[in-house]
């Protein structure tokens, strides 16, 4: 253990710094390969209007993965809560009550997940795989597989408050097109950062992710916190669903499908440990930017959309392997052993 008493490095002192550096490098690369896109403000106002759902989902998943669990059911919440909201908003003209209804449906899905995982003890991977099918099935049954156009929604105060813009809506100047959902998302993420890093709940999540046995011994109510955790995730997914539905002014049954890989990837690229116990919300936000930018940048650089998923999947795997090797000395040592190389100068013993 020679270097364990060394003062903390710059990388470990500033939260999410490695991923911020990667982000800046990628941004520079795309500014070079696609200057007509990345040197114009429109791409960034588009980011502000389309990235919030991804960021909200990834922020919730940061808690879930930080607790050493997983949630695969949030794409179904995007479908189900989006449907509940769209029907109440369009068919019943309920306005803000429709927003409350959409949120409540997401919280319900979350509570059910939490009960299945914490009370009954089903591994979260299996439980949420099941609820993913159940709720997306419900959404399809209710909606009959049809999409819902919310024509004229932009007249309503709900639309203007949740996904409107600050400036004159008819103006095409970029500063008039900054979306209000970017502000809401920023405020929510800021609040979540304080909860994760400064609140008792966040600390309990970190200890549960570290080891459930330890968490119980030190007096954490693991069951209750797990239920709260999944409820929070359900609520955030519902907010994401409503933003997405309002932004598109349309509800699609499969509108959540694309988020499964991207949201989980954003969290893990950001530096949250796949084994739980170590999280970074700032990293997650930059992880989202990277995921989003890859999509825009690859297309703008002239590659077809089919490449986007391939590259996202690849980057996802590279990021996981990278963090694994950096943070788990024992795994790194066993990897090097497997390749017959000696890890010079370091002891693998922890």
């Amino acid at each position, binding site marked *: 253990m020679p270097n364990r*008493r060394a003062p903390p490095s710059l990388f470990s002192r500033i939260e999410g710094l490695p991923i911020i550096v990667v982000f800046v490098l990628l941004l520079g690369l795309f500014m070079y390969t696609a200057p007509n896109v990345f040197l114009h403000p429109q791409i960034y106002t588009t980011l502000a209007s389309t990235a919030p759902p991804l960021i909200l989902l990834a922020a919730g998943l940061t808690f879930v993965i930080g607790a050493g669990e997983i949630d695969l059911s949030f794409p179904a919440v995007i479908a189900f809560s989006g449907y509940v909201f769209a029907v109440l908003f369009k068919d019943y003209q309920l306005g803000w009550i429709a927003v409350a209804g959409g949120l409540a449906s997401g919280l319900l899905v979350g509570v059910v997940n939490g009960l299945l995982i914490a009370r009954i003890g089903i591994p979260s991977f299996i439980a949420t795989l099941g609820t993913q099918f159940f709720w997306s099935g419900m959404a399809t049954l209710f909606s009959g597989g049809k999409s819902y156009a919310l024509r004229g929604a932009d007249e309503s105060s709900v639309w203007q408050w949740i996904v409107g813009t600050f400036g004159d809506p008819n103006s095409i100047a970029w500063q008039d097109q900054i979306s209000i959902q970017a502000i809401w998302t920023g405020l929510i993420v800021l609040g979540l950062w304080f909860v994760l890093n*400064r*609140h008792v709940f966040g*600390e309990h999540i970190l200890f549960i992710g570290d080891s459930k046995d*330890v968490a119980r011994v*030190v007096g954490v109510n693991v069951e209750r916190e797990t239920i709260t955790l999944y409820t929070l995730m359900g609520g955030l997914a519902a907010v994401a669903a409503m933003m997405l539905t309002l932004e598109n002014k349309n509800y699609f049954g499969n509108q959540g499908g694309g988020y499964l890989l991207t949201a989980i990837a954003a969290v893990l690229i950001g530096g949250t*440990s796949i084994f739980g116990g170590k999280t970074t919300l700032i990293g997650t936000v930059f992880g989202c930017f990277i995921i989003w930018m890859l999509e825009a940048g690859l297309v703008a650089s002239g590659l077809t959309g089919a490449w986007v998923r391939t590259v996202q999947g690849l980057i996802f795997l590279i990021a996981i392997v990278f963090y694994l090797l950096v943070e788990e000395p024992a795994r790194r040592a066993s990897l090097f052993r497997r390749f017959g190389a000696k890890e010079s100068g370091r002891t693998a013993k922890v």
Partner: protein
Amino acid sequence: MNAEPDQTHAAFRHIVRMEGVQKYFGAVHALRNIDLAIGRNEIVGLIGDNGAGKSTLIKVLTGVIQPSSGRIYVRDQEINLASHSVGHAHALSIETVYQDKSLGEKQPLWRNFFVGRQITNRFGFINIREEKRIAQDILLNTIGFRGVGIGVDSNVKQLSGGERQGIAIGRAMHFNSDLIILDEPTVALAVKEVRKVLDFVRRIKASGRACIYIEHNLAHVHEVADRLLVLDRGEIVADVAPKDMTVPELTEFLINLQHNR
């Protein structure tokens, strides 16, 4: 925390006393008629072979499992065994330090000191500055981590095995546990680390608390204990002071127990 606060500080002879405690697991008689008493500032070593009943005894005492029969007194007051639980044991200022289940590996020391008992405002937000200040004080004064390059922001995984035991013991001392139970704290530790742990045990004694120290290694426990209890097949077969029995004699005694089986 305590239901009867004056009870904690009132005069009492024994922090814990057991009378005729029995425990059956089906047909297995795990604890046979256990009578024991731990003084308020006594370090008691609990020794015995694997399966002798050491951990069962501790689990009964700390409310993890209920005895089949018998009485348990804490500070000379009988406790209701039906409602005895881990939380109840904590409220009675009894704390167990487990070999490796006591600390969150990836978390900083200040979080580990206070998790489960955080200092918060009314909205549940943690007063980090205050927690760190107290954690710093525990590090320096209660467990004496000076000049070893460990601070309140260090992660547990940066600590050696002996230091981890020190952190867990220091936490128990800070929260005014009157009885600290150590479950094999020196297993798998290097000699230098064992020395540290034994120093922590002496600090428990010096601070006026009691300690039950479960140990495999006779030399370690012989060095710090005021009294040694030997368990064999669920029974207390010897209750000796270390000065009356040397380590080789004790070893001989334990080997004979095995031969007589």
